[in-house]
Protein backbone atom coordinates (compact mmCIF):
# COMPACT_ATOMS: atom_id res chain seq x y z
CA UNK A 1 0.00 0.00 0.00
CA UNK A 2 2.82 2.36 0.88
CA UNK A 3 4.36 2.19 -2.59
CA UNK A 4 1.06 3.19 -4.17
CA UNK A 5 0.72 6.02 -1.69
CA UNK A 6 4.06 7.28 -2.99
CA UNK A 7 2.72 7.29 -6.55
CA UNK A 8 -0.29 9.22 -5.32
CA UNK A 9 1.77 11.81 -3.45
CA UNK A 10 4.17 12.22 -6.38
CA UNK A 11 1.39 12.96 -8.79
CA UNK A 12 -0.38 15.26 -6.34
CA UNK A 13 2.82 17.24 -5.84
CA UNK A 14 3.29 17.55 -9.61
CA UNK A 15 -0.24 18.94 -9.92
CA UNK A 16 0.48 21.44 -7.17
CA UNK A 17 3.77 22.51 -8.71
CA UNK A 18 2.18 22.96 -12.15
CA UNK A 19 -0.80 24.74 -10.66
CA UNK A 20 -0.95 27.19 -13.55
CA UNK A 21 -2.27 24.38 -15.78
CA UNK A 22 -4.89 23.58 -13.23
CA UNK A 23 -5.98 27.20 -12.87
CA UNK A 24 -6.21 27.49 -16.66
CA UNK A 25 -8.43 24.41 -16.74
CA UNK A 26 -10.63 25.88 -14.02
CA UNK A 27 -10.91 29.22 -15.84
CA UNK A 28 -11.83 27.42 -19.05
CA UNK A 29 -14.50 25.40 -17.27
CA UNK A 30 -15.94 28.59 -15.76
CA UNK A 31 -15.94 30.18 -19.21
CA UNK A 32 -17.84 27.24 -20.73
CA UNK A 33 -20.39 27.31 -17.93
CA UNK A 34 -20.82 31.04 -18.46
CA UNK A 35 -21.62 30.66 -22.17
CA UNK A 36 -24.16 27.91 -21.48
CA UNK A 37 -25.76 29.91 -18.68
CA UNK A 38 -26.17 32.93 -20.97
CA UNK A 39 -27.85 30.79 -23.61
CA UNK A 40 -30.22 29.11 -21.16
CA UNK A 41 -30.99 32.43 -19.51
CA UNK A 42 -32.14 33.73 -22.88
CA UNK A 43 -34.20 30.60 -23.54
CA UNK A 44 -35.95 30.72 -20.17
CA UNK A 45 -36.57 34.45 -20.56
CA UNK A 46 -38.04 34.13 -24.04
CA UNK A 47 -40.17 31.10 -23.28
CA UNK A 48 -43.38 31.44 -21.31
CA UNK A 49 -42.81 28.17 -19.43
CA UNK A 50 -40.89 28.27 -16.13
CA UNK A 51 -39.51 24.78 -16.13
CA UNK A 52 -38.54 22.35 -18.87
CA UNK A 53 -38.77 18.65 -17.98
CA UNK A 54 -38.44 19.45 -14.28
CA UNK A 55 -35.62 21.95 -14.70
CA UNK A 56 -36.13 25.55 -13.64
CA UNK A 57 -33.49 28.07 -14.67
CA UNK A 58 -31.85 27.76 -11.25
CA UNK A 59 -31.75 23.98 -11.57
CA UNK A 60 -30.15 24.36 -14.96
CA UNK A 61 -27.39 26.58 -13.60
CA UNK A 62 -26.68 24.10 -10.77
CA UNK A 63 -26.72 21.25 -13.27
CA UNK A 64 -24.24 22.97 -15.59
CA UNK A 65 -21.91 23.88 -12.73
CA UNK A 66 -21.94 20.35 -11.31
CA UNK A 67 -21.52 18.61 -14.66
CA UNK A 68 -18.66 20.85 -15.67
CA UNK A 69 -16.83 20.50 -12.36
CA UNK A 70 -17.23 16.73 -12.46
CA UNK A 71 -15.87 16.70 -16.00
CA UNK A 72 -12.60 17.97 -14.52
CA UNK A 73 -12.47 14.92 -12.29
CA UNK A 74 -13.09 12.62 -15.23
CA UNK A 75 -10.17 13.81 -17.30
CA UNK A 76 -8.82 12.00 -20.33
CA UNK A 77 -5.17 12.37 -19.36
CA UNK A 78 -5.02 8.89 -17.85
CA UNK A 79 -5.98 7.33 -21.17
CA UNK A 80 -2.62 8.40 -22.56
CA UNK A 81 -0.29 7.56 -19.68
CA UNK A 82 0.45 3.97 -20.68
CA UNK A 83 0.61 4.89 -24.35
CA UNK A 84 3.29 7.49 -23.59
CA UNK A 85 5.28 5.03 -21.51
CA UNK A 86 5.14 2.46 -24.31
CA UNK A 87 6.24 4.99 -26.92
CA UNK A 88 9.26 5.99 -24.87
CA UNK A 89 10.03 2.42 -23.85
CA UNK A 90 9.69 3.43 -20.20
CA UNK A 91 7.05 0.79 -19.77
CA UNK A 92 9.71 -1.95 -19.53
CA UNK A 93 11.18 -0.59 -16.29
CA UNK A 94 7.66 -0.35 -15.08
CA UNK A 95 7.06 -4.05 -15.66
CA UNK A 96 10.17 -5.04 -13.68
CA UNK A 97 8.88 -3.39 -10.56
CA UNK A 98 6.90 -5.43 -8.06
CA UNK A 99 3.77 -3.39 -8.55
CA UNK A 100 0.43 -3.93 -10.17
CA UNK A 101 0.09 -1.66 -13.19
CA UNK A 102 -3.63 -1.21 -12.65
CA UNK A 103 -3.33 -0.21 -8.98
CA UNK A 104 -0.43 2.09 -9.70
CA UNK A 105 -2.36 3.79 -12.50
CA UNK A 106 -5.29 4.20 -10.18
CA UNK A 107 -3.31 6.02 -7.52
CA UNK A 108 -1.66 8.10 -10.19
CA UNK A 109 -5.14 9.07 -11.37
CA UNK A 110 -6.25 9.88 -7.81
CA UNK A 111 -3.29 12.16 -7.31
CA UNK A 112 -3.93 13.82 -10.65
CA UNK A 113 -7.50 14.83 -9.90
CA UNK A 114 -7.41 15.00 -6.11
CA UNK A 115 -7.97 18.76 -6.08
CA UNK A 116 -10.86 18.48 -8.54
CA UNK A 117 -12.40 15.76 -6.36
CA UNK A 118 -12.16 18.05 -3.32
CA UNK A 119 -13.73 20.92 -5.27
CA UNK A 120 -16.57 18.68 -6.41
CA UNK A 121 -17.26 17.31 -2.92
CA UNK A 122 -17.10 20.85 -1.53
CA UNK A 123 -19.64 22.05 -4.09
CA UNK A 124 -21.95 19.12 -3.31
CA UNK A 125 -21.60 19.79 0.42
CA UNK A 126 -22.47 23.47 0.05
CA UNK A 127 -25.39 22.64 -2.24
CA UNK A 128 -26.76 20.05 0.21
CA UNK A 129 -26.38 22.43 3.13
CA UNK A 130 -28.09 25.18 1.21
CA UNK A 131 -31.01 23.09 0.01
CA UNK A 132 -31.40 21.16 3.29
CA UNK A 133 -30.65 17.66 2.01
CA UNK A 134 -30.10 15.13 4.82
CA UNK A 135 -26.85 13.45 5.81
CA UNK A 136 -27.97 10.04 4.55
CA UNK A 137 -28.64 11.39 1.08
CA UNK A 138 -25.30 13.18 1.16
CA UNK A 139 -23.49 9.93 1.98
CA UNK A 140 -25.42 8.06 -0.69
CA UNK A 141 -24.42 10.74 -3.18
CA UNK A 142 -20.81 10.47 -2.11
CA UNK A 143 -20.81 6.71 -2.56
CA UNK A 144 -22.28 7.22 -6.01
CA UNK A 145 -19.56 9.73 -6.80
CA UNK A 146 -16.75 7.42 -5.63
CA UNK A 147 -18.18 4.57 -7.68
CA UNK A 148 -18.19 6.94 -10.65
CA UNK A 149 -14.49 7.53 -10.11
CA UNK A 150 -13.86 3.77 -10.19
CA UNK A 151 -16.05 3.38 -13.26
CA UNK A 152 -14.29 6.19 -15.08
CA UNK A 153 -10.93 4.76 -14.18
CA UNK A 154 -11.91 1.38 -15.61
CA UNK A 155 -13.18 2.94 -18.84
CA UNK A 156 -10.02 5.02 -19.18
CA UNK A 157 -7.82 1.98 -18.50
CA UNK A 158 -9.46 0.04 -21.29
CA UNK A 159 -9.03 3.00 -23.66
CA UNK A 160 -5.39 3.33 -22.58
CA UNK A 161 -4.70 -0.24 -23.78
CA UNK A 162 -5.02 1.16 -27.31
CA UNK A 163 -1.54 2.53 -26.63
CA UNK A 164 -0.18 -0.96 -27.32
CA UNK A 165 -1.47 -0.79 -30.89
CA UNK A 166 -1.45 2.91 -31.83
CA UNK A 167 1.65 5.04 -31.55
CA UNK A 168 0.16 8.51 -31.78
CA UNK A 169 -2.76 8.61 -29.39
CA UNK A 170 -3.29 12.37 -29.13
CA UNK A 171 -5.74 12.82 -32.04
CA UNK A 172 -8.06 10.60 -30.04
CA UNK A 173 -8.33 13.16 -27.29
CA UNK A 174 -10.72 15.63 -28.98
CA UNK A 175 -12.82 12.72 -30.22
CA UNK A 176 -13.19 11.34 -26.70
CA UNK A 177 -13.91 14.87 -25.54
CA UNK A 178 -16.70 15.18 -28.10
CA UNK A 179 -18.23 11.84 -27.15
CA UNK A 180 -18.09 12.87 -23.52
CA UNK A 181 -19.70 16.26 -24.23
CA UNK A 182 -22.69 14.70 -25.90
CA UNK A 183 -23.17 11.49 -23.94
CA UNK A 184 -22.42 12.94 -20.52
CA UNK A 185 -24.70 15.91 -21.16
CA UNK A 186 -22.24 18.78 -20.78
CA UNK A 187 -24.54 21.34 -22.43
CA UNK A 188 -27.91 20.05 -21.19
CA UNK A 189 -29.31 16.99 -19.35
CA UNK A 190 -29.61 13.87 -21.51
CA UNK A 191 -33.38 13.85 -20.95
CA UNK A 192 -33.56 17.07 -23.02
CA UNK A 193 -32.67 15.16 -26.17
CA UNK A 194 -35.52 13.91 -28.38
CA UNK A 195 -37.12 11.12 -26.35
CA UNK A 196 -36.25 8.20 -28.66
CA UNK A 197 -32.59 9.13 -28.66
CA UNK A 198 -32.39 9.98 -24.97
CA UNK A 199 -33.93 6.62 -24.03
CA UNK A 200 -31.27 4.78 -26.00
CA UNK A 201 -28.35 6.60 -24.41
CA UNK A 202 -29.81 6.91 -20.90
CA UNK A 203 -27.59 5.10 -18.40
CA UNK A 204 -24.65 4.97 -20.80
CA UNK A 205 -21.36 4.99 -18.88
CA UNK A 206 -20.57 8.59 -19.79
CA UNK A 207 -24.04 9.66 -18.76
CA UNK A 208 -23.71 7.81 -15.45
CA UNK A 209 -20.67 9.85 -14.50
CA UNK A 210 -21.87 13.12 -16.01
CA UNK A 211 -25.57 13.80 -16.25
CA UNK A 212 -26.81 11.18 -13.78
CA UNK A 213 -24.22 12.14 -11.19
CA UNK A 214 -25.42 15.75 -11.25
CA UNK A 215 -29.04 14.62 -11.08
CA UNK A 216 -28.26 12.38 -8.10
CA UNK A 217 -26.60 15.31 -6.35
CA UNK A 218 -29.56 17.55 -7.10
CA UNK A 219 -31.97 15.02 -5.56
CA UNK A 220 -33.79 14.35 -8.83
CA UNK A 221 -34.10 10.65 -7.95
CA UNK A 222 -35.71 8.94 -4.96
CA UNK A 223 -33.41 7.08 -2.56
CA UNK A 224 -34.25 3.59 -3.80
CA UNK A 225 -33.39 4.62 -7.35
CA UNK A 226 -30.03 6.02 -6.22
CA UNK A 227 -29.36 2.69 -4.47
CA UNK A 228 -30.24 0.81 -7.66
CA UNK A 229 -27.93 3.09 -9.63
CA UNK A 230 -25.17 2.39 -7.10
CA UNK A 231 -25.59 -1.34 -7.62
CA UNK A 232 -25.70 -0.86 -11.39
CA UNK A 233 -22.39 1.02 -11.18
CA UNK A 234 -20.79 -1.79 -9.16
CA UNK A 235 -21.89 -4.30 -11.80
CA UNK A 236 -20.51 -2.10 -14.57
CA UNK A 237 -17.20 -1.78 -12.78
CA UNK A 238 -16.90 -5.57 -12.32
CA UNK A 239 -17.69 -6.28 -15.97
CA UNK A 240 -15.27 -3.60 -17.19
CA UNK A 241 -12.59 -4.91 -14.86
CA UNK A 242 -12.94 -8.41 -16.32
CA UNK A 243 -12.80 -7.00 -19.85
CA UNK A 244 -9.71 -5.01 -18.88
CA UNK A 245 -7.94 -8.12 -17.54
CA UNK A 246 -8.56 -10.12 -20.69
CA UNK A 247 -7.52 -7.27 -22.97
CA UNK A 248 -4.44 -6.43 -20.91
CA UNK A 249 -3.15 -9.99 -21.16
CA UNK A 250 -3.60 -9.93 -24.93
CA UNK A 251 -2.05 -6.47 -25.25
CA UNK A 252 0.98 -7.34 -23.18
CA UNK A 253 1.89 -10.06 -25.67
CA UNK A 254 2.14 -7.35 -28.33
CA UNK A 255 4.63 -5.35 -26.30
CA UNK A 256 8.20 -5.57 -27.56
CA UNK A 257 9.86 -3.39 -24.97
CA UNK A 258 11.81 -1.46 -27.56
CA UNK A 259 10.12 1.87 -27.52
CA UNK A 260 9.03 3.36 -30.81
Amino acid sequence: MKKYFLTFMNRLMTTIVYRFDFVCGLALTAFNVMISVFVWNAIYKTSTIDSFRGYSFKDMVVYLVLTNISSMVFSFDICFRIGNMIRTGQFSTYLFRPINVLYDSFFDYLGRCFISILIFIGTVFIYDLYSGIGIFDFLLTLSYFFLCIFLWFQIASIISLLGFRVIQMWPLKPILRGVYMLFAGMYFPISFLPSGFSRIIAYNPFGMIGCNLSEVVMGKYIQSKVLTLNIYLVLCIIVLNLIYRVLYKKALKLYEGMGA
Partner: protein
Amino acid sequence: MRFSVFKELVKQSFREFLIYRTTAILTVVFSIMFYLIEVITGIVYFSFTDRIFDWTRRDYMILITTANIIQMGYQFFFVASHEGLEEAVIEGDLDYSLIRPVNSFWFYAFNRLDIPSVIGIIVSVIFQCYFFSSMKLSFFNVMMYSFGIILGIWFLFLVNQNIVMLSFWLEKSGKLIGIPEYIFEMVSRPQSIYPNKMVLILTYILPFFVSVNYPIDALHGKFSLSGTVMYILYLLVLTFITYNIWNKGLQKYASSN
Protein backbone atom coordinates in the same frame (compact mmCIF):
# COMPACT_ATOMS: atom_id res chain seq x y z
CA MET B 1 5.88 35.84 -51.87
CA ARG B 2 5.73 34.44 -55.37
CA PHE B 3 2.97 32.10 -56.44
CA SER B 4 5.39 29.30 -57.33
CA VAL B 5 6.59 29.19 -53.71
CA PHE B 6 3.02 28.93 -52.52
CA LYS B 7 2.39 26.11 -55.00
CA GLU B 8 5.39 24.22 -53.65
CA LEU B 9 4.11 24.67 -50.07
CA VAL B 10 0.71 23.34 -51.07
CA LYS B 11 2.36 20.29 -52.61
CA GLN B 12 4.28 19.72 -49.38
CA SER B 13 1.11 20.01 -47.30
CA PHE B 14 -0.54 17.47 -49.52
CA ARG B 15 2.32 15.03 -49.13
CA GLU B 16 2.20 15.46 -45.36
CA PHE B 17 -1.50 14.75 -45.45
CA LEU B 18 -0.88 11.48 -47.28
CA ILE B 19 1.83 10.43 -44.84
CA TYR B 20 -0.20 11.07 -41.68
CA ARG B 21 -3.37 9.43 -42.93
CA THR B 22 -4.65 8.16 -39.57
CA THR B 23 -4.20 11.54 -37.95
CA ALA B 24 -5.93 13.15 -40.92
CA ILE B 25 -8.91 10.82 -40.69
CA LEU B 26 -9.23 11.41 -36.95
CA THR B 27 -9.05 15.17 -37.51
CA VAL B 28 -11.86 14.94 -40.04
CA VAL B 29 -13.94 12.81 -37.67
CA PHE B 30 -13.64 15.18 -34.76
CA SER B 31 -14.15 18.36 -36.73
CA ILE B 32 -17.39 16.99 -38.16
CA MET B 33 -18.38 15.62 -34.76
CA PHE B 34 -18.01 18.98 -33.04
CA TYR B 35 -20.11 20.63 -35.70
CA LEU B 36 -22.81 18.00 -35.31
CA ILE B 37 -22.78 18.46 -31.53
CA GLU B 38 -23.38 22.18 -32.11
CA VAL B 39 -26.28 21.35 -34.41
CA ILE B 40 -27.79 18.86 -31.94
CA THR B 41 -27.40 21.41 -29.14
CA GLY B 42 -29.19 23.94 -31.32
CA ILE B 43 -32.02 21.48 -31.95
CA VAL B 44 -32.35 20.91 -28.19
CA TYR B 45 -32.35 24.65 -27.46
CA PHE B 46 -35.13 25.21 -29.95
CA SER B 47 -37.22 22.26 -28.83
CA PHE B 48 -38.19 24.40 -25.83
CA THR B 49 -38.83 27.67 -27.55
CA ASP B 50 -39.50 29.00 -31.05
CA ARG B 51 -37.14 31.90 -30.64
CA ILE B 52 -34.21 32.95 -28.48
CA PHE B 53 -34.99 36.66 -28.23
CA ASP B 54 -35.34 37.52 -31.90
CA TRP B 55 -33.44 34.52 -33.26
CA THR B 56 -35.36 31.76 -34.99
CA ARG B 57 -34.01 28.24 -35.31
CA ARG B 58 -32.94 28.83 -38.90
CA ASP B 59 -31.09 32.02 -37.94
CA TYR B 60 -29.34 30.14 -35.16
CA MET B 61 -28.31 27.26 -37.43
CA ILE B 62 -27.01 29.69 -40.05
CA LEU B 63 -25.04 31.45 -37.33
CA ILE B 64 -23.30 28.35 -35.97
CA THR B 65 -22.64 27.06 -39.49
CA THR B 66 -21.13 30.40 -40.52
CA ALA B 67 -18.94 30.38 -37.43
CA ASN B 68 -17.91 26.83 -38.25
CA ILE B 69 -17.01 27.67 -41.84
CA ILE B 70 -14.85 30.60 -40.65
CA GLN B 71 -13.18 28.46 -38.00
CA MET B 72 -12.55 25.64 -40.48
CA GLY B 73 -11.31 28.12 -43.06
CA TYR B 74 -8.83 29.47 -40.57
CA GLN B 75 -7.76 25.93 -39.77
CA PHE B 76 -7.34 25.07 -43.42
CA PHE B 77 -5.14 28.03 -44.28
CA PHE B 78 -3.31 28.93 -41.12
CA VAL B 79 -3.57 26.61 -38.13
CA ALA B 80 -0.74 24.27 -39.13
CA SER B 81 1.55 27.25 -39.77
CA HIS B 82 0.71 28.77 -36.40
CA GLU B 83 1.35 25.53 -34.56
CA GLY B 84 4.76 25.23 -36.17
CA LEU B 85 5.60 28.92 -35.81
CA GLU B 86 5.28 29.12 -32.05
CA GLU B 87 7.63 26.17 -31.64
CA ALA B 88 10.03 27.50 -34.26
CA VAL B 89 10.36 30.85 -32.48
CA ILE B 90 11.02 29.29 -29.09
CA GLU B 91 13.34 26.59 -30.36
CA GLY B 92 15.22 29.04 -32.57
CA ASP B 93 14.39 27.30 -35.84
CA LEU B 94 13.40 30.38 -37.85
CA ASP B 95 16.87 30.84 -39.33
CA TYR B 96 16.41 28.50 -42.27
CA SER B 97 13.43 30.46 -43.45
CA LEU B 98 14.88 33.89 -42.72
CA ILE B 99 17.84 33.40 -45.04
CA ARG B 100 15.56 32.58 -47.94
CA PRO B 101 14.83 35.30 -50.47
CA VAL B 102 11.11 35.42 -49.60
CA ASN B 103 9.04 37.68 -47.41
CA SER B 104 9.13 35.81 -44.11
CA PHE B 105 5.75 37.10 -42.89
CA TRP B 106 3.84 35.72 -45.86
CA PHE B 107 6.07 32.67 -46.05
CA TYR B 108 5.10 31.74 -42.52
CA ALA B 109 1.47 32.74 -42.88
CA PHE B 110 0.97 30.33 -45.76
CA ASN B 111 3.54 27.81 -44.63
CA ARG B 112 1.23 24.82 -44.39
CA LEU B 113 -2.31 24.01 -45.39
CA ASP B 114 -4.30 21.69 -43.17
CA ILE B 115 -5.80 19.55 -45.93
CA PRO B 116 -8.21 17.49 -43.74
CA SER B 117 -10.10 20.67 -42.80
CA VAL B 118 -11.42 20.84 -46.37
CA ILE B 119 -13.83 18.02 -45.55
CA GLY B 120 -15.10 19.98 -42.54
CA ILE B 121 -15.65 23.03 -44.75
CA ILE B 122 -17.49 20.97 -47.36
CA VAL B 123 -19.79 19.41 -44.75
CA SER B 124 -20.69 22.80 -43.24
CA VAL B 125 -21.21 24.35 -46.68
CA ILE B 126 -23.61 21.54 -47.57
CA PHE B 127 -25.55 22.15 -44.35
CA GLN B 128 -25.50 25.88 -45.03
CA CYS B 129 -26.91 25.38 -48.54
CA TYR B 130 -29.70 23.36 -46.96
CA PHE B 131 -30.52 26.19 -44.53
CA PHE B 132 -30.30 28.71 -47.38
CA SER B 133 -32.59 26.67 -49.61
CA SER B 134 -35.70 27.91 -47.83
CA MET B 135 -34.67 31.56 -48.23
CA LYS B 136 -34.94 33.87 -51.20
CA LEU B 137 -31.41 35.01 -51.84
CA SER B 138 -29.98 37.07 -54.62
CA PHE B 139 -26.64 36.23 -56.17
CA PHE B 140 -25.26 39.52 -54.87
CA ASN B 141 -26.15 38.64 -51.25
CA VAL B 142 -24.48 35.24 -51.47
CA MET B 143 -21.38 36.91 -52.92
CA MET B 144 -21.35 39.41 -50.05
CA TYR B 145 -21.76 36.53 -47.62
CA SER B 146 -18.76 34.72 -49.07
CA PHE B 147 -16.77 37.95 -48.97
CA GLY B 148 -17.72 38.32 -45.29
CA ILE B 149 -16.52 34.78 -44.60
CA ILE B 150 -13.13 35.59 -46.14
CA LEU B 151 -12.86 38.73 -43.99
CA GLY B 152 -13.75 36.62 -40.93
CA ILE B 153 -11.03 34.09 -41.71
CA TRP B 154 -8.54 36.91 -42.18
CA PHE B 155 -9.56 38.49 -38.87
CA LEU B 156 -9.13 35.19 -37.05
CA PHE B 157 -5.72 34.79 -38.67
CA LEU B 158 -4.59 38.25 -37.52
CA VAL B 159 -5.72 37.71 -33.93
CA ASN B 160 -4.05 34.31 -33.73
CA GLN B 161 -0.93 35.61 -35.45
CA ASN B 162 -0.58 38.28 -32.77
CA ILE B 163 -0.99 35.73 -30.01
CA VAL B 164 1.59 33.43 -31.60
CA MET B 165 4.00 36.33 -32.02
CA LEU B 166 3.90 36.88 -28.27
CA SER B 167 6.34 33.97 -28.11
CA PHE B 168 9.04 36.36 -29.39
CA TRP B 169 8.80 38.08 -26.01
CA LEU B 170 7.27 35.51 -23.66
CA GLU B 171 8.61 32.03 -23.36
CA LYS B 172 5.52 30.37 -21.99
CA SER B 173 2.91 31.90 -24.22
CA GLY B 174 1.74 28.49 -25.38
CA LYS B 175 -1.17 28.57 -22.96
CA LEU B 176 -2.58 31.72 -24.54
CA ILE B 177 -2.88 30.19 -27.99
CA GLY B 178 -6.29 28.67 -27.26
CA ILE B 179 -7.89 31.96 -26.16
CA PRO B 180 -9.10 33.23 -29.56
CA GLU B 181 -10.75 29.85 -30.13
CA TYR B 182 -12.71 30.12 -26.88
CA ILE B 183 -13.81 33.67 -27.62
CA PHE B 184 -14.81 32.55 -31.08
CA GLU B 185 -16.93 29.80 -29.57
CA MET B 186 -18.59 32.43 -27.44
CA VAL B 187 -19.45 34.71 -30.36
CA SER B 188 -20.90 31.82 -32.32
CA ARG B 189 -24.05 32.23 -30.21
CA PRO B 190 -26.62 35.00 -30.80
CA GLN B 191 -25.07 38.22 -29.57
CA SER B 192 -28.29 39.42 -27.94
CA ILE B 193 -27.89 36.86 -25.13
CA TYR B 194 -24.75 38.53 -23.79
CA PRO B 195 -24.49 41.63 -21.59
CA ASN B 196 -24.20 44.89 -23.51
CA LYS B 197 -20.71 45.82 -22.35
CA MET B 198 -19.30 42.48 -23.45
CA VAL B 199 -20.89 42.88 -26.89
CA LEU B 200 -19.57 46.44 -27.21
CA ILE B 201 -16.00 45.38 -26.42
CA LEU B 202 -16.16 42.42 -28.78
CA THR B 203 -17.66 44.58 -31.51
CA TYR B 204 -15.69 47.82 -31.45
CA ILE B 205 -12.35 46.91 -29.88
CA LEU B 206 -11.88 43.31 -30.93
CA PRO B 207 -14.60 42.78 -33.53
CA PHE B 208 -15.15 39.07 -32.93
CA PHE B 209 -18.91 39.52 -33.10
CA VAL B 210 -18.57 41.40 -36.37
CA SER B 211 -16.46 38.63 -37.90
CA VAL B 212 -19.29 36.12 -37.45
CA ASN B 213 -22.30 38.38 -37.83
CA TYR B 214 -21.12 40.49 -40.75
CA PRO B 215 -21.51 37.68 -43.33
CA ILE B 216 -25.03 36.99 -42.05
CA ASP B 217 -26.04 40.65 -42.12
CA ALA B 218 -24.63 40.84 -45.62
CA LEU B 219 -26.70 37.82 -46.56
CA HIS B 220 -29.87 39.52 -45.38
CA GLY B 221 -28.81 42.72 -47.10
CA LYS B 222 -28.75 44.49 -43.75
CA PHE B 223 -25.21 45.81 -43.98
CA SER B 224 -24.36 49.47 -44.22
CA LEU B 225 -21.66 50.77 -46.50
CA SER B 226 -19.99 52.77 -43.73
CA GLY B 227 -19.92 49.69 -41.48
CA THR B 228 -18.32 47.63 -44.24
CA VAL B 229 -15.72 50.29 -44.90
CA MET B 230 -14.95 50.55 -41.17
CA TYR B 231 -14.55 46.79 -40.87
CA ILE B 232 -12.25 46.57 -43.89
CA LEU B 233 -10.24 49.57 -42.65
CA TYR B 234 -9.92 47.92 -39.25
CA LEU B 235 -8.59 44.75 -40.87
CA LEU B 236 -6.14 46.71 -43.03
CA VAL B 237 -4.80 48.63 -40.05
CA LEU B 238 -4.56 45.45 -38.00
CA THR B 239 -2.71 43.75 -40.87
CA PHE B 240 -0.30 46.66 -41.03
CA ILE B 241 0.26 46.56 -37.25
CA THR B 242 0.68 42.79 -37.25
CA TYR B 243 3.20 43.03 -40.07
CA ASN B 244 5.20 45.59 -38.12
CA ILE B 245 5.08 43.60 -34.92
CA TRP B 246 6.42 40.65 -36.90
CA ASN B 247 9.41 42.72 -38.01
CA LYS B 248 9.94 43.98 -34.44
CA GLY B 249 9.75 40.38 -33.26
CA LEU B 250 12.36 39.30 -35.78
CA GLN B 251 14.74 41.91 -34.42
CA LYS B 252 14.17 40.50 -30.97
CA TYR B 253 14.63 36.94 -32.23
CA ALA B 254 17.95 35.56 -31.08
CA SER B 255 18.06 32.32 -33.08
CA SER B 256 18.84 30.22 -30.05
CA ASN B 257 16.46 28.46 -27.75
